[in-house]
């Protein structure tokens, strides 16, 4: 029997607000993080480089503060319902840190594939930056023979390349050109996305 896995990017795809900027706002570092987010989305620096910088800036925030901010972040209700209806086939594939978003992913009831970090003397230290293409390969090894992925940014391109069907989703902001160029579909509305996912 054919097994399909649905992979979702987190920030700006499942969440209507970006998570790291919300943490940055708490620190009064919104502008600095916004600049980093912008140049990363446009692909001017690699996602790994950007994540290292962001963790260096935001890693000083106590974890319980981060978690309380992340817990307040809204998930798109239509996509949340889609995932809750098939939690074993859905995966959140995010470059964000397990330490920061693990609880949020847990709320959805599905598994997450994330970048990894640990704390040293209360400071978050990055251990491994997720390559989203590797995440898809991992799911194939785990027995999924068809992968459908949804994302919006340059770091979703490796995931799109390894997927059978890629959907660029512009629910919050327009997908980047790089993401659109690797996608089979472009969708701007969560209900339309869920209906597309159920026909594929």
């Amino acid at each position: 029997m054919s097994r399909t896995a649905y992979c979702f990017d987190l920030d700006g795809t499942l969440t209507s607000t970006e998570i790291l900027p919300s943490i940055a706002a708490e620190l009064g570092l919104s502008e600095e993080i916004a600049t980093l987010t912008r140049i990363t989305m446009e692909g001017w620096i690699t996602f790994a480089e950007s994540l290292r910088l962001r963790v260096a800036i935001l890693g000083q925030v106590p974890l319980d503060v981060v978690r309380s901010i992340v817990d307040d972040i809204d998930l798109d209700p239509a996509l949340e319902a889609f995932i809750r209806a098939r939690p074993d086939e859905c995966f959140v594939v995010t470059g964000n840190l397990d330490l920061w978003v693990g609880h949020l992913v847990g709320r959805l009831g599905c598994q997450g594939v994330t970048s990894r970090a640990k704390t040293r003397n209360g400071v978050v230290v990055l251990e491994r930056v997720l390559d989203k293409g590797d995440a898809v390969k991992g799911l194939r090894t785990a027995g999924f023979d068809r992968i459908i992925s949804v994302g919006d940014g340059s770091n979703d391109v490796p995931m799109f390349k390894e997927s059978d069907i890629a959907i660029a989703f512009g629910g919050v902001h327009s997908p980047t050109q790089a993401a659109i160029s690797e996608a089979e579909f472009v969708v701007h509305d969560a209900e339309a996305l869920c209906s597309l996912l159920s026909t594929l």
Partner: protein
Amino acid sequence: MQPVEYAVIASAGLGSRLGHGLPKSMLEINGRTVLSRLIESLRPHVKGVRVVVGYREDLVIGLCASLHRDVVIVRNPEFRTTNTVQSMAMGARGLSGKVLFLDGDLIVEPGSLSHFIAKAADVPSLVAVAPSRSENPVNVVVDGPESRMLVTRFTRDAGHPYEWANVVAGPADMMDGAEGYVFQRLEEHLPLDAALLDLREVDTPADLELAKAFALQVDEQGALRARA
């Protein structure tokens, strides 16, 4: 009886014959693009609209992002080497049931479209025909009265009262595997039920003038109905 569930609009091709540097569906008439007009007249009748994009996809994606957010955009990056029929097949990917396939360069009178879609529920496939008036038409040979027409043949010969109107309703997989023109795929299944559709095609500069006048007339009728 099986109602039309989805509409697939093929808007991937080059607007080369008109030379405006735009996909033909992005031409604006009386403040609205040809594509917006189509989407808005289809939206009340179907569960979803899909638009297949290729040439200048950025423009069509931008239009949908701002005005038609619930449209699903299907990319055809091979638009330079594929035909409309292949775009239509890509647009219907994953769908089942009945689909209305349309060229993206049509101005359709909404009332007549609504009738056509209703009629399409009663037959396996329904081919749209119109009085022959385009510059380079593919004409149709029809049998029977106007209310129950059958298309028996497509022809490039002049002197036929009706032309193929580039709109057809049928099974979602009806364009799969085809390579030539859409009407050549239909030829494989003749005879086919047909019905009139009040529309104009934006294909050549002369067509464009006719289409503009027609769109203005449709807009006026719409405004009158809204006031009544």
